[in-house]
């Protein structure tokens, strides 16, 4: 039962994009090599800056009618962007403080039986179309940021929860027995061995959740939650292409940026020693 899971974990590790390879085994450690190469640091931001610059230049020469002007002036754009970022940050925060402890709890012996039930709920959260979920929440809680936040959070719990559970379950049971065998308390085993070893998988889940959240946060506008969805919606209803374009481009850039930051975090937070050797 354990070996396929282990292989799975290893596969996941190998899948991690552009992971800089460390020196092979017998080399003396020396100063640890930086895991973030300069290509990794510069490529995506350069692309994003280029996209933003093009958009800006295009807007400079485009002649906008009064409706478009209205939609984009008075700091509307920066307000929408800021709302979007806030929605993503707050919802991700709640996803983390709900999903990771829940994942830990569900892998403890006493609660292991509850895992299928919890997973079923998490699956339901994600299987429900986000917009439908949002509509229901708005009916229940009224319009506003609160409904939007809850909707986004529920929608993104699954990847973090399932990855936390998978990461903790993939740990080699003999290793955990060794940890107990040398006299670690249950909390010590969790904090010093189980969680650090599960970090790569958990972070992968967090990254998925972050990107999901950027996407779902554009739907917040339908519940009066604001965000970049406002621009997109205005663009559609008033049939003004530039407004729609700007909303979409900003959403995409934000999603890619968040994904890039998360990938950096994955590289930096992954415990040393996991990637070396075979």
């Amino acid at each position: 039962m354990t070996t396929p899971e282990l292989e799975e974990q290893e596969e996941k590790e190998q899948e991690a994009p552009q992971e800089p390879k460390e020196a092979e085994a017998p080399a003396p450690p020396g100063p640890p090599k930086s895991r973030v190469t300069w290509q990794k640091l510069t490529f995506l931001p350069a692309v994003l800056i280029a996209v933003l610059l093009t958009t800006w230049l295009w807007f400079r020469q485009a002649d906008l009618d009064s409706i478009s002007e209205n939609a984009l002036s008075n700091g509307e754009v920066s307000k929408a962007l800021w709302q979007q970022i806030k929605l993503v940050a707050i919802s991700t925060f709640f996803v983390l403080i709900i999903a990771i402890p829940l994942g830990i709890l569900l892998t403890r012996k006493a609660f292991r039986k509850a895992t299928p039930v919890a997973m079923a709920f998490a699956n339901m959260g994600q299987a429900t179309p986000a917009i439908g979920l949002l509509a229901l929440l708005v009916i229940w809680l009224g319009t506003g940021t609160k409904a939007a936040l809850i909707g986004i959070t529920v929608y993104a719990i699954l990847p973090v929860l399932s990855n936390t559970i998978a990461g903790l379950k993939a740990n080699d049971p003999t290793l955990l027995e060794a940890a107990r065998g040398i006299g670690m308390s249950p909390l010590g085993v969790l904090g010093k061995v189980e969680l650090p070893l599960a970090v790569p998988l958990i972070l992968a889940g967090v990254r998925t959740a972050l990107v999901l959240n950027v996407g779902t946060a554009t739907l917040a506008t339908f519940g009066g939650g604001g965000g970049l969805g406002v621009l997109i919606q205005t663009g559609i209803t008033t049939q003004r292409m530039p407004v729609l374009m700007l909303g979409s481009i900003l959403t995409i850039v934000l999603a890619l940026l968040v994904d890039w930051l998360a990938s950096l975090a994955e590289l930096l937070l992954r415990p040393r020693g996991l990637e070396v050797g075979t």
Partner: protein
Amino acid sequence: MPEASTTGATTGATSGAATGATIELDHLSKRYPGSPAPAVDSVNMEIKAGELVIFVGPSGCGKSTTLKMINRLIEPTGGRIRIGGEDVTDMDPVKLRRKVGYAIQSAGLFPHMTVAQNISLVPRMIGWPKARIRTRVEELLDLVGLDPGEFHGRYPRQLSGGQQQRVGVARALAADPPVLLMDEPFGAVDPITRDHLQDELIRLQHELHKTIVFVTHDFDEAIKLGDRIAVLRERSHIAQFDTPEAILTNPADDFVSGFVGAGAALKRLNLTRVRDVEITDYPTVTLDDPLQDIFNRLRSSGTNEILLLDKRRRPYKWLRRGDLMRARGSLARAGTLVHDTVTRDATLRDALEAVLTDNAGRVAVTGRRGEYEGVVDMETLMNSVHELLEADRLEAMEHQHELEEVRAAQTHAEQEGAGGGKTA
């Protein structure tokens, strides 16, 4: 029970003598819920301080379960465990395990911690000061034969299997526990490395005198390492608990003799080490000696061969009479290179192997740093083996009688244990 008082007395007498502690298992049992037969059925055993005891038996016989009950990774469902006379059956298992070293198959090192971090885990948990931990880690790495400077900061996945296993042993020894439990620690390494690790363990035990309980399914390993061997059959019933010599020469029953397998006489050679037999001294010269001296030594020595040592006194070449003449006085070309040596810790079997493969029927014995100490040849080996077997035969005659008594006592205790188990 009458046994309890006598075991208590022996504990008091022996625990002061060695750095190890006694282990007593008193009707130790494990019954898993839902299975009719217990996995471990009323094991009684007394392990002396500083003794290396091997649990050996077929897979599934409960030997690992019995071992894990000693540090209560598996909670016993009946019976008592005493370590150093102290009853640990109800003590906080976390505290207990910090006092009992534990090493397992494929080391069980944590891949996200460096070698030093892995080793220092237990000392840190019991709150040693930092400076003491640091010196202890260095000391332990040195003890298990790894260079502290080189291996200190490495991660386990940067090490070979054998090196990982050494670190695993170092970690088990970190807080200087009196008792060490080893669960098939060398099961996952290749035969050559395993052999090395076994030799190292023997050397360590010579220095440290811990009480070690070692589980294996490999009878040859058991013979090589054990002071005493417990041959276990299903449900951890002790088929025989005795010295390797006694088990080889006097298996208690068909089960044990089946487990010993064929070639008991050859296996007997595993029990004696080169240091225990007579080694002959050989005329030697070193590379630095002037040629004329070497000639003189060759001529004056009774043998027609001398051993040439290098600058660090390690065996280098066998020089025969005439070799130097043929090579026109060049030491670099003369003689045959020494291709195999045995250490003083090698078993007679290893020595015999080396002597048999050597074309002249002798092999140099070396000390810890590879320096020359003497030579064994076919003749000395034959004599030693002959003496050994003779001694064994005499002992066996004596033992036969003793064994019968022990077995009678054992069956008696088992019956009593079964009765006691039901009431408890």
